[in-house]
Structures are given as C-alpha cells and as structure tokens.
C-alpha cells in the first residue's frame, strides 16, 4: 500500500512537469516575441553565405511561421526547441549554436554549484544545529551575525573584496595565495591542445580533463582557482540555510518526543543527533528549492566577478553584446536546472517524509 502511494506521488509529480515546462517555454517564447522578430531572424542569418540575407530572412520567417497566429508560432518554435535548435549566440566568448555553448559552459557552472552546495551543507547544517543547541552562546551569536550579514552583503561586492584581499600584491604579499580570475593560470596551458578558448576537452570540466591527460599541476591549479568563487557563492546561500536550520532545530527541541527521549535517560548526544536533527532537517529540505534558485542566480554574479567561464559568465557576455539567443538559451537552461532540481528534491522528500505522500 505504501509502495503504491509512493508510486502515485512520483507519477503525480512527474505529470506536474508538463504544465511547468509549457509555462517556462511559453514565458521564454513571449520574451522572444517582445524582443522582436528581427532579432530572432538576425540570429539565423549567415553573412558569409552566398545566399542573400533577404532570402535567408524569408526562409527563417517561413520556418518559424512568423506570419501566422501566435499560437502557431509558439508551436513551431517549440518543435525546433525540442529538435535541439535553440538558436545562435554571437558573443566574444562563443560564436555558434546556443545548445553547443550550453554544453561547453554548463559543466563549469555545475562544478561551482555542486561544490558550493556541498560546502553549505557541510558547514550550515552542523553550525545551525550547534547554535540551536547552545542557544545564546558565543557560537550562537557568531552564527547569527554570519546569517545576518548574509542578507546584507551583496554577493558581487563580497567577491570583489576577496579579489582585493587576495589579489593585491601592494597591500600584503602574504595573502597572494589564491588566484582571482579564470579557471587556470595562463603559464600552465601553453602548448596544451585540449584547452581551447577557456574550455577544456573532452568533459569540459578542467579538474577531470587535467587528470585524464595526466597533468597534476593543472589539476591543482584549477582547484586553487575554484576556491574564491566557491567561497563567494557558498556565502550567498549559507545565510538562509543557517537561519532555517537553527530555527527548525529550536522548534524540534521543544517537541514532546524530545522531552520523552530525555526523560527516559538517553544521553544528550543521542537525543540531538538521532532524535532531533533528523526531524529538524525536514524544513531545511523543503526550502532547498529556494536555495537552488539563489544558487543559480548567485552563479551569474559570481562567475562574472571571477571571469569563470560558466553559464552565468556567458549570460553577462550576452547582455553586453546584445545577444538575444544567448539570453534566452541561458533562461531556458536555468529554468530547466531549477525545475529538475526541484523535482529531485520533491521526490526525495516523498521518500524521506511519509506525511508528504498524498
């Protein structure tokens, strides 16, 4: 019976994907239309081709049925999207199809986002638990200051302050330990044929590719390059996790079953680690979706500040270059990442908390 219910829950959740995906694509389609047909046509015109631009433009207009009603246009736009034609991007960092650009830049964003969320969980959860258990202690006060600052310090500014602190040779030589820009030191990649235009091959994740090609020096350098961006992004999402964990743990510690556990003589360690923490984690879990959203948004800013070639950096380049294909592609991929991350969270949540399966 329980298994059946869970299956229904998962099925229901998967079915809910359909309207969400339609909604996402509809929004992006409307935005494309607001941007104007000329921009859409412009993406597809190849100026080096022998076919005149006017003829090419007519072909594009015909392909997307730009003279038909909007709903028909949406349909043909969606069909080309499903077929892998996401348009073209022309920025200084990449010139080519949007989907290719995403496949090159997304792995870097994924690395940044994964490391930051791991770090957030590793620091945020224990710190939140401790500060709730030792309420009003020095540690608790410090935690509160951290989470308060998290709401008030702009992410991009923190990144810049880190750059100043670690990148300035004139203030103090001793701090000059972490590189402040890009993914790897230029001096290391001279003559490397699998690293072109800031992107490594074949996996596009420099940490993995350097190991594949047996370059330990590049690997360690790429790890060093990740440290400041990861700190910046982690900081941006840490505040909400800390705050929720702390208040949720406090609520849990006031529950009857915790009093029962204490009354029957269990050690405080067992009460906190076995009985309380697990239940306190549930609200943190529900807010993961929100955290993922701020993670993806934070990636745009962090990547720009550190010149880190991910989707966010590419987005910024697209803004500066007036490149609509890039902006729309990035919006779709951010939306998809968010929707699917939330799907996984929801399903995992269904497994963890029996009350949620309805």
């Amino acid at each position: 019976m329980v298994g059946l219910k869970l299956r229904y829950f998962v099925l229901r959740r998967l079915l809910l994907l359909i309207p969400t995906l339609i909604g996402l694509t509809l929004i992006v389609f409307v935005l494309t239309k607001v941007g104007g047909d000329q921009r859409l046509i412009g993406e597809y015109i190849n100026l080096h081709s022998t076919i005149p631009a006017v003829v090419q433009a007519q072909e594009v207009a015909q392909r997307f049925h730009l003279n038909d009603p909007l709903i028909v246009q949406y349909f043909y736009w969606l069909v080309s999207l499903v077929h892998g034609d996401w348009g073209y991007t022309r920025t200084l960092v990449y010139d080519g199809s949007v989907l290719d650009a995403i496949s090159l830049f997304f792995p870097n964003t994924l690395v940044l986002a994964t490391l930051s969320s791991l770090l957030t969980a590793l620091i945020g959860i224990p710190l939140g638990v401790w500060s709730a258990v030792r309420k009003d202690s020095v540690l608790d006060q410090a935690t509160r200051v951290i989470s308060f600052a998290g709401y008030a310090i702009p992410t991009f500014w923190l990144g810049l302050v880190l750059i100043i602190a670690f990148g300035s040779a004139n203030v103090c030589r001793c701090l000059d330990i972490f590189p402040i820009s890009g993914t790897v030191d230029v001096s290391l990649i001279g003559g490397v044929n699998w690293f072109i235009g800031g992107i490594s091959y074949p996996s596009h994740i420099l940490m993995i590719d350097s190991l594949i090609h047996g370059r330990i020096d590049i690997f360690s350098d790429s790890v060093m390059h990740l440290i400041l961006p990861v700190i910046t992004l982690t900081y941006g999402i840490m505040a909400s996790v800390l705050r929720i964990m702390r208040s949720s743990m406090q609520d849990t510690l006031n529950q009857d079953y915790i009093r029962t556990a204490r009354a029957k003589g269990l050690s405080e360690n067992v009460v906190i680690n076995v009985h309380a923490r697990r239940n306190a984690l549930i609200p943190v879990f529900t807010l993961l979706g929100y955290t993922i959203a701020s993670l993806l948004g934070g990636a745009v800013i962090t990547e720009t500040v550190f010149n880190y070639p991910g989707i966010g950096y590419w987005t910024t380049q697209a803004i500066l270059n007036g490149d609509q294909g890039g902006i729309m592609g990035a919006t779709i991929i951010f939306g998809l990442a968010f929707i699917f991350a939330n799907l996984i969270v929801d399903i995992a949540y269904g497994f963890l908390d029996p009350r949620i399966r309805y």
Partner: protein
Amino acid sequence: MGSLTLGYDTDELLNLGLRELLGARKNDAFSSSRFQQYRLTLKILLESPSSAVGLAIVILYSAIAVIDFIYPSLIGVQNAYSMVPDFSNPVPTTPTWPTHPFGTTFPGIDLYQAIMAAIRVDLWYSLLIVLTGAALGTLVGVLAGYAGGSLDEVLMRITDIFLSIPYLPFAIAVGFVLGRGIEDISLALAVVWWRQYARYARGQALAVRENAFIEAARASGVGSLRIMLRHVVPNVLTPVFVQISLDLGTIVQVFASLTFIGFASANPLLPELGTLISDGFQYAVVAPWVVFFPGMAILIFAIAMNLVGDGLRDALDPRSRT
C-alpha cells in the same frame, strides 16, 4: 536575526491594544484609532535598540535622497543627476581630505559626490520595484484567495509558472528584451518580484475571508469588489508591509548587481552604485576604495533595512518571534 531582544512580553503587548492590530479590524477601527495604532507600532519599534539604529540609518539615507532632489550642494554634490568625469586625470586617486574624502574612481569621478547622488537613484528605483511588485502581487493574491474556485486555481498556477524560473536569470531576460536600460531592468525586477507577494497575500486573504465581519458585510449586501478593497486588502497589508521593508534591503543589492553586470550601461554617467563599482572594477586591486565605498553604501542600507524589517515584524506579529 529574528531573535532581537525586546523589552516587553506578549501579554503586555496585547494589553497595550495590539490585539486590535493583529486581529481583524472592525469598520470603526479605521477612522479614529488607526493613527494611534501606528504610533504604538513606532513606539514598540523604537524600544528595540537595533531597530532604532536601523530606522535612523534609513531616515538618513532618505534624507540624502531628498536633499539630492531639492538642494544637492547642501551635502557638497555638484550635480545630482550626472557624474562629473575628469578625463584629464582619469586614474583613481587615493582619498584625500577634504577635496576627495572617498577618493576618485575611473574616469576621474569624485566618489563621495557620486555615492551621495547615487543613493537617490538606487533608493528611488528600489522603492519603485518593491512597491510595484507588492501591489501587483497583493492584488493577484487577494483576488485568488477571496474569490476562490477556478479563478484561484488559474491565478495560482500562473504564479507557479512564474516561480519556475530563478528570479535573477528571469529578470535578466525580461530586462534584456525591454532594452537594457535602467528603467527596463527596474520594470523587469518588478515583473519577477510580485510572485512571493501573490502567495503571501493569498494565504492571508484565505484566513481573513473566514472572519465574521466579512460574512456580516456580505449579509448586509456589500458588493464583492468593495469587500475585497475595503475589508480584505487592509487586513492583508500589515504582513505585506513587513515583507516590503525586508525586501527593500534585498532589492537594493539585486538592483546594484544587475547594473554591475551591464544593465544601465546606456547612460554611463548616471550616478548608480552598481555602475560605480563596475566602473572601478578594473582598478579594484590597485585602488580598493573604488569598490569599497560604493559597496559599503549598499551594505549599510541593506543592514538597516533588515533591522527595521525585523523590528516591524516583531512589533506587528509577536508570534513570529524566534
């Protein structure tokens, strides 16, 4: 941050008449005692030292913005509407009292004047964004919550769809198609900012709808629209105001982040904190002050706004204190 110590307890608050404020307002509560209620809220807010400090800073910022508007030379600002570049000396120079207290930034712009002028621009647009978003969201939420049924379902599914894109990339896309200017990105942020308010207001409206005074109004033949505007909206507004004050601290950062990554570059001389930081970006390592001072201007305002928001929430709703 929610647990700022207040020098009174819940019962005392209720005796002070806060029960009136928290519970559903009666019709007569609108006329005479509303002013008293606001004064009471202010009194409670000021009792907490951190909220009082926050409020003082917010007032200071607002005063700077107003002075920029009416008499900028009072605070030493030559031109509140445009930064004054000095191309003969474009490289940032160190802070020197009294000519350039915060130094200069690229291209030869006096940072003190630029920041003072920028406060007006950032505050104005942030306020505009939050208020537009809140108004739109509250309207949608109240409509959905009060009407219920299929309208509720449709409005909330639309809200869900809007919630399915992380707000920053969403705002970037909207701002981009509108034209990459400062007004465009403000409008874009307002377009993505109504979503939370819609959910929030709907929840409140659902609760308010069940109150006896709504039923009484309906029984005495008051129209739905009038009930919604006169009876539901005012009761939803209190938590919305708390959220507005908390959001102002966030939006001022988001706004500056977006201008930093390249929005509003059409008018490079418009004094704006994100643009200022972006101008000085390339000199950040050799001239830290070009990034430090504009960032501090954002930071201090965001902290103050958070303190005020927290204080307001504690004053208006003792139940949410953690």
